[in-house]
Every structure is written in structure tokens, then in C-alpha cells.
């Protein structure tokens, strides 16, 4: 089992407020890692350190190292564009661009220099098939993506992310804005995606973490309390706080 991300002694501050404390974690290739914990525990913040989306927020400072394939992504020489190309992200609320379905998907590849029409057509078909959206959209590829339902929009966002051929996909509560049917579709999708991709998913929903993930990390107040195989966390947690949280005693 290969390690994709190796996080060591990570601390993150918003101004004077410390949001993440001494995080050590490994994220394994072609596995699904779930980050669980109550609101405000730092799991989304942590997720966003992995593709450096926190760089957008003023006054954030970070200590420690995050290595992707043994290279520190916070090193000055690390190419941010390359990082975001390799580490894609799907957000909490579906955020397709106000463009056509086709243009949403080819946006990434075009930015990275793919110009050939046939190749772009192929990418659109491949990614839409990967997210099981092809049959629903093949006749309306050139209609606005905003006309899709919430669940379809989220699957389109996943397809858009897959179009740049990332190695890792970060998902920030990708189903929290969706209905149960769309949620189960996306959960089914995750399993298939692990054949090619490494997935890190933040979720509020404990059952979801139990259903889909191979590894689970429990966050509380900016610290990782426990970090293990999902079945261990859910059946035999070592820490009392983890047990309290997954049995629903707080959170």
C-alpha cells in the first residue's frame, strides 16, 4: 500500500486562532479516507491544506510539512498549478460554472493546453460516463449546466474535476446539499473511482463514512483524536471521545 500524502506536525493559524494542532497523518493511494468530526473541528480546513486552497484566505499561516509523493507541497519551488492539477476538489455546494455542460468539463483541459476538438469530445464523454451522467446529458451537452438538478450538478462537478486527470480527489461534504437518491448515486460512484483515484472525503454523516471509506480520521477541536481503518474506528475505537461521537453522544 503506497502512501500518497504524508502529513507531519501540521499546525494552521487563522491570525491568532489555531485551527489545526500537530496533525500527523498518512493518506494511502487508491483508498478512500473519511474525515469526520463535529462542525468547526478543522476537518474542512485540513482538507483545504492538501491542495493549498487556504492560500486564498488572508492571514493564514501554516507550519509543518505535507508531502505528496515525497515532495513538500508547501516548498517555495512547488508548482501550485501542477499541485491543483494533481489534487482535484469537489465542493460542498455544487458549483458548476454558468456555462454549458460541455464547456464546464473542457474548462480544465483547455486551461492546461488541450486544443484538439476530438480529444476534448472524448474527455467529455469519458468523464460523463465515469460519473454516470452521460445518458442523462448526451443530448443536451450544449445547454447550460445550471439547468441540471442539484445531484446532476454535483456529478458534473466531479466529472469536471476528473477531466484534468487528477491523482487525488478532495471532497468537502459533497452530498450534504443533495437528496438521498443523489447521495446514494454519488456514494456508489466513489467506490468505482478508487480504482484510479485516491479520495479524501469530509463528511458530517457517520453512516456515510462507515459505508464508503477504507480509513477514517476523527477530528475534534483542531486535533486528530483517532486515525485508523474504518472498521476499527467504528467497531472498536480506542479513544473514549471517538466512541462518544460515533455513537451520537455529541456532535
Amino acid at each position, binding site marked *: 500500500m503506497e502512501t500518497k500524502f504524508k502529513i507531519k506536525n501540521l499546525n494552521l493559524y487563522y491570525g491568532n486562532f489555531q485551527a489545526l494542532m500537530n496533525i500527523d497523518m498518512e493518506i494511502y493511494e487508491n483508498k478512500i479516507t473519511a474525515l469526520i468530526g463535529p462542525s468547526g473541528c478543522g476537518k474542512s480546513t485540513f482538507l483545504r491544506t492538501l491542495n493549498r*486552497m487556504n492560500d*486564498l484566505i488572508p492571514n493564514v499561516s501554516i507550519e509543518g510539512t505535507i508531502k505528496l509523493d515525497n515532495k513538500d507541497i508547501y516548498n517555495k519551488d512547488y508548482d501550485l*498549478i501542477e499541485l491543483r492539477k494533481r489534487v482535484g476538489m469537489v465542493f460542498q455546494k455544487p*458549483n*458548476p460554472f454558468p*456555462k454549458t455542460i460541455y464547456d464546464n468539463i473542457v474548462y*480544465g483541459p483547455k*486551461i492546461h493546453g488541450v486544443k484538439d476538438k476530438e480529444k476534448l469530445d472524448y474527455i467529455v464523454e469519458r468523464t460523463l460516463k465515469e460519473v454516470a451522467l452521460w445518458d442523462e446529458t448526451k443530448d443536451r451537452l450544449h445547454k447550460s449546466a*445550471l439547468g441540471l438538478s442539484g445531484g446532476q450538478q454535483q456529478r458534473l462537478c466531479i466529472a469536471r474535476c476528473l477531466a484534468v486527470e487528477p491523482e487525488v480527489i478532495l471532497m468537502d461534504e459533497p452530498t450534504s446539499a443533495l437528496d438521498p437518491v443523489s447521495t446514494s448515486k454519488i456514494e456508489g460512484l466513489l467506490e468505482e473511482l478508487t480504482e484510479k483515484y485516491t479520495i479524501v472525503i469530509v463528511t458530517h454523516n457517520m453512516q456515510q463514512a462507515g459505508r464508503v471509506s477504507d480509513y477514517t480520521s476523527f477530528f475534534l477541536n483542531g486535533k486528530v483524536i483517532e486515525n485508523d481503518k474504518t472498521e476499527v474506528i467504528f467497531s472498536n475505537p480506542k479513544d473514549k471521545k471517538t466512541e462518544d461521537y460515533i455513537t451520537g453522544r455529541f456532535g
Partner: protein
Amino acid sequence: MKIKNIIFYAILGILALLTLATLILIVGYLLINGLPHINMEFLTQDPKMMGKEGGIFTIIVGTIYVTLVAIIISTPIGIAAAVYYTEYAKEGIIVQIIRFFTEILAGIPSVIFGLFGFAFFVVFLGMGWSVISGGLTLAIMILPTLIRATEESLKTVPMSYREGSLSLGATKWQTIVKVIIPCCKNGILTGMILGIGRAIGETAAVMLTVGGALKLPTSLFDSTRTMSVHLYMLSSEGLSQEKTFATGALLIIIVLIINTTANFISSRLGGNNGN
């Protein structure tokens, strides 16, 4: 208490009606006196005898030229400034100062712009009374309108679009050009139309920089005359009551059409559904 309320409502209602009545009176008066004299001959023929006879064809062309030059120059500058304010500049003393001066620019009487245009473009840069001098002057004048409209519309673009684009490995510049500005095209268009409206109606600034030639302008460096200037000349020199009202009516029709279009675009098409 009740009576107070009724009186208050009545006063407000009367004042509102008064405003509306003034508008209807002005527009109606112009149209009644002007419309009968607007015909094919008026629209398609050159003015003769200083505008006493003939039509206003060359003047319509001149108006279009000057306005087009103004909008073509000011649109890219306005968009660039607005993008700088909202996407790049950090809120701070410098941006506040620039913004303050932009606001002042919006409040300066147009004749001052004319004076500046005359001194700078016409005399100092030696462009003479010309389409280009007038266009540049008007471009500066309508810049605040454009910047404001673009800025307002940039601010309504959700953060999630920026995040979505950046997370795919796009640079900030690519995000702005390919996602954010396309989202704002309605806002920018509204700003352009309002700017055009202001440029078409402008008299003093144009008179001082474009001059008042009646012949058809064939280059950017020809002097010409816009409809507002023509209207002013006709009425101040008492050349022709008919032609004055006809020009005025045409002008107000154009301005009304432009404003209605702007309203339509900003309300119907909304801010950010670039579909």
C-alpha cells in the same frame, strides 16, 4: 393618528404624481412639436443653410461616430479598473483614494471635461476639433459609470466560481478572463448602455472638443456635430423652430430607447446567469 397618515400619504402621492407629470409634460411637449417634422427627408438628407433646411443625416452619423469612439475607448479601461479594484487591490488607503477620485470624476460638471478636452486633446496634442478629441473627452467622462456598473456586477460573482476554477489549476488571470468576466457581461453591457446614453446627451463637452462642422465626417480627425450640439445651435441662433423640435424629439426617443434597454438587460437577464 389616522388623519395624519392619510395626509402624509396624500402629500407623497401628489409629489410622486408631480414628478411623473413633469416627465410626461416635457417628453409629450417635445414629441407633439417634433414628431410631425420627423420624416424620411429629415433623417436622410444633409442639412442645408446651417440646418435651417434639409435634414440631419450628417449629424446623426457624427453622433454615432463620437459615441462609438468614446465607448470603444472607455470600455476596456473601465473593465480593467473594476477588475483591479475587486480582484487585485487589497482594501486599503490607496484603493480608497482612487475610489474617492473616481467618485469625484462622476460629479464634475461636463463643461469642465470639455474645457480639459479642449486644452489637452484639441490644443496641446494638436488633434484639433475632431471626432477623436470628443470621443476621448467623453470616454473620460463616462468612465466612472462603467467602472461602477462593472464593479457592482463583479462583486455578485459567487466565491464558489473562483474556487472551482482555481481548484482545477487555473491561474487567477485565467479565472478572471474565462469565468468571472463572462459572468458579468450583463452588468458590463448595462454600464456601456448608460455610458452611451450619457455621451449622446452631452452638449458642452462635445461642443468644445468636436466643434460644429455640418459636413459628413470621413476620418477621426474631422470635426463634426452631434445632435445635442445641433439642437443647441439651432435654438440659440433661432434658425428653425421645426428642425429644433424634430432634433429634440429624435434625441429623446433615442435616449429613452437606450435607458429602457439598459433597464431590460439589468432586470430581465439578471446579474450572473451567463447562459
